[in-house]
């Protein structure tokens, strides 16, 4: 493992030179009370510029990342982030804007461009998913879910509905039950049927007047589309239960069908997945929430409004609003990248995104289904869930397959999720990978399947090519060290 940059520190080595203080800067210092001056220099590594460049370049090479590797992490939609979006987000007029500016007297006129971007992004997202209004504020998918649940709760409270439960399928992302629970609801888990979709009989048994919402991912986490979605929506609406759309898998239906047309009332999107903004390693994410008209009064503040003269302003007074859910206006730089991405691709381009994402996933499924078990064996959407059960009988688990892929230059798929599939391996290639890249991944998976039959022992020490090899996952979870 490489040294920390602090361990490379040599006393008095420097990678910078500071200019002399000007007279006015010296003058300035006289006005700062002495108690605010540091008495000790900060503990920083003393290194040259070249030391720093080499240190971080070498560290970055340790990373298995989208810039260097195929990254089929199911449910995460690790697609390529176009450089054009980065260039525009770096433009000084956007990057240097102070978030308080629109709230200052006269500041609104200095931020019209940024407000217009936000307003237009809201409109575009409304059109793409068939909703009537959007808030761009939530900072991540789970934050969007919480916002969505708070909106649903505000809707039911305002109508005087006595609602206590939220129905969630057993294939759901773990954040769904978490969000519903934090929103004050009791979670009822609905099992999946043999086709991998929500069991309609079980759903109807659980559905009554006390159900506030049904949270669904569509296509679901098995990469399967629910053919009963319209019936499900009608039955939910008959008891005034709202339909919540977890947008994690929007990449499968982008430009083809709209959650709003399927009967969903509240939608959260993951811009960092479907709309190609930076993802992983902290993002930052962005989880806008869209609603149908009946929920608009509860949307969080601030709200961007277009005045009659065509200028944009922020509105804070909304009587029934759930209030602030984030400081300022969401992760603006991320929203801007998503806006540019949508404009770059256009309506036709967005449709081709989902077409290629689905074709790529089905291609992998078709090529691997003979060598790996496929518990739900039907054509998939943008991802497919295999099981390493056959390999596990020889002692090679999904975790071992994942580690073997790292040594072959691929980021592993999502493993052990969804929970209803044993030894799950959830593969999502996304639309941005070429056939050649996908073929080499398939080849690696086939080699691994063969090796699992002949030399299962060799798997347990993998990966071997990285400076950090097999981690002790048990120790990592059990013996947590929170301080240094």
């Amino acid at each position, binding site marked *: 493992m490489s040294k920390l940059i602090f361990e490379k520190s040599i006393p008095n080595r420097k990678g910078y030179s500071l200019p002399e203080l000007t007279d006015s800067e010296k003058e300035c210092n006289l006005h700062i009370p002495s108690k605010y001056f540091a008495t000790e220099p900060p503990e920083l590594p003393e290194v040259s510029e070249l030391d720093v460049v080499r240190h971080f370049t070498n560290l970055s090479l340790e990373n298995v990342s989208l810039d260097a590797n195929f990254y089929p992490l199911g449910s995460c939609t690790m697609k390529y982030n176009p450089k054009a979006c980065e260039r525009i987000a770096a433009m000084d007029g956007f990057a240097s804007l102070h978030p308080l500016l629109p709230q200052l007297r006269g500041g609104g006129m200095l931020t019209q461009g940024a407000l217009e971007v936000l307003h237009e992004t809201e409109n575009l997202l409304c059109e793409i998913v068939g909703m009537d209004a959007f808030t761009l504020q939530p900072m991540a998918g789970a934050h969007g879910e919480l916002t969505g649940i708070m909106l649903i709760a505000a809707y039911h409270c305002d109508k005087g509905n006595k609602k206590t439960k939220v129905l969630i399928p057993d294939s759901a992302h773990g954040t769904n039950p978490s969000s519903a629970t934090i929103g004050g609801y009791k979670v009822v888990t609905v099992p999946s049927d043999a086709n991998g979709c929500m069991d309609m009989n079980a759903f109807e048994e659980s559905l009554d007047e006390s159900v506030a919402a049904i949270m669904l991912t569509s296509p679901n986490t098995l990469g399967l589309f629910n053919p009963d979605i319209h019936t499900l929506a009608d039955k939910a609406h008959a008891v005034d239960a709202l339909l919540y759309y977890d947008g994690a898998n929007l990449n499968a239906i982008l430009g083809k069908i709209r959650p709003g047309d399927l009967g969903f009332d509240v939608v959260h999107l993951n811009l960092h997945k479907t709309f190609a903004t930076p993802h992983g390693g902290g993002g930052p994410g962005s989880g806008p929430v869209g609603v149908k008209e009946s929920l608009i009064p509860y949307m969080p503040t601030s709200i961007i409004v277009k005045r009659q003269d065509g200028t944009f302003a922020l509105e804070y007074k909304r009587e029934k609003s759930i209030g602030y859910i984030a400081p300022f206006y969401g992760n603006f730089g991320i929203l801007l990248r998503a806006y540019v991405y949508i404009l770059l691709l256009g309506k036709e381009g967005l449709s081709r995104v989902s077409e290629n994402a689905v074709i790529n996933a089905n291609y992998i499924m078709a090529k691997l289904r003979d060598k790996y078990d496929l518990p739900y064996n039907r054509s998939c959407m943008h991802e497919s869930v295999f099981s390493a059960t056959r390999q596990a009988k020889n002692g090679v*688990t999904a975790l071992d397959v994942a580690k073997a892929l790292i040594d072959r230059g691929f980021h592993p798929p999502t493993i*052990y999720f969804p*929970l209803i599939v*044993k030894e799950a391996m959830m593969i999502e290639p996304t639309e941005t990978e070429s056939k050649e890249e996908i073929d080499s991944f398939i080849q690696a998976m086939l080699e691994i399947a063969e090796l699992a039959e002949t030399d299962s022992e060799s798997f347990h020490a993998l990966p071997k090519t990285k400076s950090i090899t097999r981690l002790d*996952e*048990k120790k990592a*979870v*059990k013996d947590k060290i929170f301080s240094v």
Partner: protein
Amino acid sequence: MSTPDNLKYTKDHEWVRIDGEIAIIGITDHAQNELGDITYVELPAVGKKVEANGELAVIESVKAASDILAPIAGTVSEVNNALDDEPEEVNDSPYENGWICKLTDIDASEVDGLMSAADYEAFIK
């Protein structure tokens, strides 16, 4: 995979053994094998009342966190505190040292509705 004959089993992979007025509860060998290395067991509070199929404890492995449900109704009378330091006992000894908790105030006839060892073995096949 072992499935002792003197225990009763649930579809959620818990086992229960009736010892006089007390029911002892744990998870099966099959369950621990599926979960993988167990890293934490969130034990219930002594005195907690549970219904049959009510949430009793939470078990975490390197793969997932899962609920342990009560095979029968009762009141928690004792928990296996040794699992705080050595949760791996659930892996190593699911039917002995890896027991989770004991219930009192039970109706022993409730176990009649649960699976026998042979039924459970057929169930997990």
